[in-house]
């Protein structure tokens, strides 16, 4: 167990270092002069130098990496767009909570929808309800956000006028983006829930519980679902990072002013420093959430079934 945790922890740290190296040194690896690629061939020497300096290309590789890490850590990192080079960190500080909000709401929505659906489907195994639910979830993972989002806008915002289309403020504005972002995860989790419930349902302790004459409802909710949800919630946790990445597309569709929008805008502005800071922040979050889930699961899992069985 300890070895497992140590390995995960190490992998997380190495990933973060790896990303840092990639985002700092990648420009050196591409064929041709990166500055040419970014500024075009007509750029004057002054502009080239300014850009080189802004993104640290004038330094030797190890110094470039070090400078980047130092600037991030001290909050000194600035956008790579002369002459107005604003600090990057306040930008991220402003956008990150909005992305987190969207991702958390989407995840809660996914869990809240997927679990009832999966349990229902498992309890009615083999019936039309079950098939319907499972086909729904298969379709759910196949629908691209870039299609679902606009369709939701069209129906709910444009035709029915119930919800604000894009951006906007207040609680109503988050409904459509959250649904868009959550559908894939919802579909996946409902399948997971179903198979997990079916698995647990076959365990001895459940059979015992039934033999004791407990009501079916009690058996299902108290014994089966409780145990079945452990892996489901774990996967949900593991996928939170992926949900963050998925938010980039959702944010673009709905004009949601979060990290994804910042990242895409920075790309369009050719603001390389903000781009790499965004990528790094996303990665760190992703890695941390995965690590925490891993550890939590590692701690909970080996015992939960045993205890459940004894009840």
């Amino acid at each position, binding site marked *: 167990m300890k070895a497992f945790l140590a390995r995960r922890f190490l992998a997380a740290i190495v990933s973060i270092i790896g990303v840092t190296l990639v985002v700092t040194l990648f420009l050196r690896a591409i064929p041709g002069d990166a500055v040419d690629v970014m500024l075009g061939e007509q750029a004057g020497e002054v502009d080239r130098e300014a850009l080189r300096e802004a993104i640290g290309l004038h330094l030797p590789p190890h110094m470039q990496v070090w400078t980047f890490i130092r600037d991030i850590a001290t909050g000194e990192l600035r956008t790579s767009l002369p002459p107005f080079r604003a600090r990057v960190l306040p930008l991220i500080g402003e956008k990150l909570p909005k992305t987190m909000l969207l991702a958390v709401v989407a995840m809660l929505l996914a869990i809240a929808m997927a679990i009832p659906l999966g349990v229902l489907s498992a309890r009615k195994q083999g019936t039309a309800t079950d098939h319907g639910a499972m086909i729904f979830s298969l379709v759910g993972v196949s629908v691209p956000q870039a299609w679902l989002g606009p369709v939701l806008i069209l129906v709910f915002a444009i035709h029915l006028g119930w919800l604000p289309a894009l951006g906007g403020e207040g609680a109503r504005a988050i409904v459509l983006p959250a649904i868009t972002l959550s559908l894939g995860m919802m579909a996946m989790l409902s399948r997971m829930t179903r198979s997990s419930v079916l698995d647990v349902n076959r365990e001895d302790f459940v059979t015992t519980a039934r033999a004791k004459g407990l009501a079916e409802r009690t058996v299902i909710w108290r014994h089966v679902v409780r145990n079945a949800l452990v892996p489901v919630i774990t996967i949900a946790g593991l*996928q939170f*990072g992926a949900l963050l990445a*998925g938010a980039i597309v959702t944010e673009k569709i709905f004009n949601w002013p979060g990290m994804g929008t910042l990242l895409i805008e920075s790309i369009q502005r050719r603001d390389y420093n903000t781009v790499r800071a965004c990528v790094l922040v996303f990665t760190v979050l992703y890695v941390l959430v995965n690590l925490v889930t891993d550890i939590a699961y590692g701690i909970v899992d080996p015992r939960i079934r045993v205890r459940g069985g004894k009840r």
Partner: protein
Amino acid sequence: MKAPFDIILRAMVLPGARPTDDEGHQVIPDFASSPKHPRSRRISRQERIRRTLRRYLLAWIGLGLVTLVTLAAVFAPWLSPYTPDAMNLANELAGPSRAHLFGTGDNGVDVLTHVLYGARISLLVAMLTTLVSVVVGVSLGALAGYAGGMVDGLLMRLVDVVLAFPGILLAIFITAVLGPAVEHLILALALTGWVGYARLARGQVMALRDREYVQAARALGATPLRVVVRHLLPNIAGPILVSATFGLPAVILAEVALSFLGLGVPPGTPSWGALLESGSQYLLVAPHLAAFPGLAVIITVLGFNFLGDGIRDRLDPRGRRAG
């Protein structure tokens, strides 16, 4: 990107979805099929036939859809009523009509033509990415599994690291720096795509490594390369194939997402993601624009998923026995 492709890759298909599984055993949650404990539930013969039919029905539907899309992609130049760059400014963003079955898009391009050519881009990117990922992943995975020891340790740590990394983000970063182009897209997606296959191949090779027939081959003086290529790879081809079948739609969704973000293909190139992008921009005046490319994506991805389910059930002896 929908269900960021890691979601699908990691949770539905590839090993490594569950953190406790360190040996790379496939822990496909076995959706839609088969209890794993035959004793716990008795299934009538009729029920079994019914289910088998149903399962294979979906697989056949999947195969049909995939074939359809592939044919559309291959024969796009012959099937398309127009050329992809033919503009007709007088008939911009018009709804479906006899002349334009799927309507027209920005600058009056024919949406049907773009959907057909978009199939080319999507399938091309998906297949090449998967091919590169499989070749690299399986080679490294088999090497790690067969050699064991230090080599294995190092490679698997590398796999851990890459797995801990949100693939789509790296792809965004790389295409943002290199600029939109099909080659860059493939490079960006394959760079993280190989790890799943590496893990899978390693686990399978480790499981087979000490089988008698392998030991026999080794005793007869076969070189390690020969052992791997002749005796091990053929036996692990099945799971790899299943994995790749699920990997393809994930790559397609990733490509669509990147093109939607304007990072996939150069402006003006017909692609599903780009069509969806202009569809989302012209929602008010041309709701048909997003509909058709969206359906194309859904059909393709669903087709591969159905097909993958079918192949998996067919190849996985445990699954079949239980089902």
